């Protein structure tokens, strides 16, 4: 009980909800890995294990009407933005009941009704559209914010620079969330960026930046709320740098030959956002097991749902090319 009084801002109850959501993402991603290895999931997949706190912390700070665009590593953002695990799993299985109705798959998850304008398989591909969405909000005088997720790797691509420049120039209500997990696939940050502090990239465009420990969901949520308010109040876009860790390979099955395994173990032990929150909350084993059972049931049910789903008619491939 003393812990509640010590903390300000986010209540214990809310943190418990965050924990549950993060645990749901974790168990979902583990299930995805398992099902992929069982040969049930077509294509290729990138799971967000280690980065759950960024997804939950940011998405839980959003208001109704805010929109997001995500990356190739989109499952966490998609769940945190409100898509039901059933619809997400069904999409991975290529079913009509999937959130993209089988047309998109893991890297093209859309849930437009819930403000998810799409995952993107092209690094940096979704940033310009977020600038445009924010521009539309500004045109219409709507108090909505457009949020782009991307990684440290994406800060090197042209769309990143053009988007930040334009967003800052036109003072649109956008938040650019950089999930700095220090890897661009197999390339460490030291090999892809000549600078260490990526907020300097926002500074180059005159854009205000905020920096946060991406493994601390409470901090992410608080800082994200500030960033969103700044944008929503018409004060301009924000670059939100979240220092996080990718506790898995780039894709499922990646042997990570390029990575120091001792370092990875160290991170698993010290930088797991779930373990960090579990400790902060002082969750008892019973509490943890209850929550784990709940989310595991949801995840297992999503696989059942997906497996019992409907395959599209092959000819459905001809639909939706044009409006």
């Amino acid at each position, binding site marked *: 009980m003393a812990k509640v009084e010590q903390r300000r801002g986010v209540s214990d109850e809310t943190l418990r909800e965050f924990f549950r959501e993060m645990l749901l993402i974790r168990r979902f991603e583990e299930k995805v890995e398992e099902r992929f290895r069982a040969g049930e999931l077509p294509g290729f997949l990138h799971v967000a294990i280690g980065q759950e706190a960024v997804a939950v912390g940011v998405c839980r700070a959003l208001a109704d009407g805010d929109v997001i665009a995500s990356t190739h590593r989109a499952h966490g953002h998609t769940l945190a933005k409100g898509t039901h695990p059933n619809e997400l799993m069904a999409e991975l299985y290529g079913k009509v009941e999937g959130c993209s109705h089988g047309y998109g798959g893991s890297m093209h998850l859309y849930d*437009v009704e819930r403000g998810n304008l799409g995952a*993107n398989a*092209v690094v940096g*591909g979704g*940033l310009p559209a977020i600038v445009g*969405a*924010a521009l539309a*909000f500004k045109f219409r005088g709507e108090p909505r914010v457009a949020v782009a997720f991307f990684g440290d790797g994406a800060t090197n691509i042209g769309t990143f620079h053009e988007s930040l420049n334009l967003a800052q120039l036109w003072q649109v209500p956008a938040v650019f969330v950089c999930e700095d997990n220090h890897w661009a696939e197999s390339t460490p940050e030291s090999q892809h960026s000549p600078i260490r502090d990526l907020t300097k990239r926002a500074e180059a465009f005159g854009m205000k930046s905020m920096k946060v420990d991406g493994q601390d969901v409470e901090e992410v949520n608080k800082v994200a709320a500030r960033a969103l308010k700044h944008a929503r109040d018409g004060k301009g876009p924000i670059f939100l740098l979240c220092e996080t860790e990718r506790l898995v390979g780039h894709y499922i099955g990646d042997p990570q030959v390029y990575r120091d395994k001792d370092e990875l173990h160290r991170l698993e032990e010290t930088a797991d956002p779930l373990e960090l929150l579990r400790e902060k909350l002082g969750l008892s084993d019973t509490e943890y097991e209850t929550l784990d059972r709940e989310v595991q049931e949801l995840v297992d049910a999503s696989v059942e749902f997906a497996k019992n789903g409907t395959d599209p008619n092959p000819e459905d491939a001809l639909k939706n090319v044009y409006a």
Partner: protein
Amino acid sequence: MSMPELSYREAVRDALSQAMRQDEDVFIMGEDIAEMGGSMGVTQGMLDEFGPERVRNTPISEMAIVGSGIGAAMQGMRPVVEVMYEDFLTISMEQIVNQAAKHRYMSGGQLKVPLTIRTQGGAGWSPGAQHAQQVEAWFVGVPGLKVVFASTPGDVRGLLWSAIYDDNPVVFFEHRTLYGLKEEVAEEIEPIPIGQARVHRQGEDVTVVATGRLVHESLAAAEEAEQQGVSVEVVDPRTLQPLDEEAIVASVKKTNRCVVAHEAVTRMGFGAEVAAVVQHQAFDWLDAPVERVGAKFTPLPFAPVMEEYVIPHAKDVLAAIQKTVQRDGAS
């Protein structure tokens, strides 16, 4: 009823302006389109009428220009973005091809991208290899995009209107050398359906399918051919994707001979697609192979004499027409 005379340039401006007057969701952005009125003068006067929020100068950022257009379109606005030279579409290719064209499909129908991308190109003034390419064919092969290329003031006005109000991303090509071309047009804008070809000139002996500047070169060649006793029908598809195959094939079934003509390089040009459609659907009607007229296979040279040599003219269309009729032994 008076029929105002509008230049191609004014016709584009008219479509944009009328759409913007009646519809707050329409706005334009691009490089130098505000005070300067556009590098080709198309948007002159529009800043004064609509203000800087709706007539937006942009930085030199083709990816963000197109991409922010995509984002605004996804929110239900109808942006018309300008890419100053179609050569620079290459810079925004990723956003056009990977994003705009595919959002609707990849989302399983959840999104629409009612974006219009206006651009222009055209050789004949020694702009050099990076300022006069004709790249329309590249976009025809991208499912999800519509591609329009009008060749007259009335057509460009009616088609731009339709492009703006089409719920799909439209790449809208204008031709630089046609901006000054004048024509009497109706007082009110007559929207032209996307996907509808136009027969400019009726004929019996040869069908010439031409786009852009080559429509006018083909009409000149047709006049000349007439003197030689060859009756030429000139068809402008106007929309390249979706293509009015029915109109083109119907014409060839009537004339039995076909020439395709465009300013773009012949190899893999739009004419190749038309030729494939024609030979497939009118094979037994053809009395000669389909002739293709286009630029020679080089980047565009600078020196005027070399540029003149590389790009196609009326005489090249005439030569192609003559080739299709020579097979009969007819002169």
